[in-house]
């Protein structure tokens, strides 16, 4: 299997046997990417996605958690042509292709910002504030952006 590109016609790999051979040792630490930055105003949002895609490309297991200002990344109808930036939601849409199937979104952060739940892509999973704490507690290592 190609270890640099996502499979073109599949969106889900549930079994670890499907993962490409990588230098990452088995029994690895579970990584959580906490994304708290809005897109466009700052490169951090984009760089958090690039980190996720890099992890996916080498077969490392990562989960993403969108919190606070980070939930703006998930807004639909982004048209950044006028500000000379690449479309962030198009990059987000690539996450399932890279086997990043745990994309968690904090419900409170959305409702505080009046973001319509119906706008979210179907690769995301809404969680409540108690679950946010559990997710933080459950992972071995956290990268925050």
């Amino acid at each position, binding site marked *: 299997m190609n270890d640099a590109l996502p499979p073109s016609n599949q969106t889900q790999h549930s079994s670890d046997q499907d993962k490409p051979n990588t230098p990452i040792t088995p029994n690895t630490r579970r990584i959580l990417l906490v994304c708290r930055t809005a897109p466009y105003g700052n490169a951090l949002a984009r760089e958090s996605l690039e980190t996720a895609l890099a992890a996916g490309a080498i077969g490392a297991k990562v989960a993403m958690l969108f*919190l606070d200002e980070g939930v703006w990344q998930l807004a639909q109808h982004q048209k950044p042509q006028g500000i000379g930036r690449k479309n962030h939601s198009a990059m987000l849409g690539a996450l399932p292709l890279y086997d990043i199937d745990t994309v968690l979104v904090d419900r409170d952060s959305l409702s505080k910002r009046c973001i319509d739940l119906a706008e979210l892509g179907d690769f995301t999973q809404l969680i409540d504030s108690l679950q946010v704490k559990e997710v933080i*507690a459950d992972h*071995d290592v956290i990268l925050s952006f």
Partner: protein
Amino acid sequence: MTLHTVNKSPYLSQCLADCLDRVSAGDSIVLIEDGVYGINCATSETLSALNKAIAQLMTLGVQFCALRPDIEARGLQTTSANCPFNLLSDGDFVDLVCEADKVLSWY
């Protein structure tokens, strides 16, 4: 146990409030850089909501700390009456990171 770092002033940013919302019992919080402007929250009207949250989290065994070099650099005066935070040297900070399972940085 998760160690949380916060590096923004609570007078400017939601950072500390966002962090406090996600802290679990037994976690530690370390204020660093401009985050240390939060140490006098007990005496600030503006920060009374944060102060309440901090007092409550302390009853759950959450440990509140701040980096001493950052406090001294900024000329902040602390007394045990107005400051519920343990002051840490850089070495103490490293020890606390070792005691924790992981670090979550709020910035």
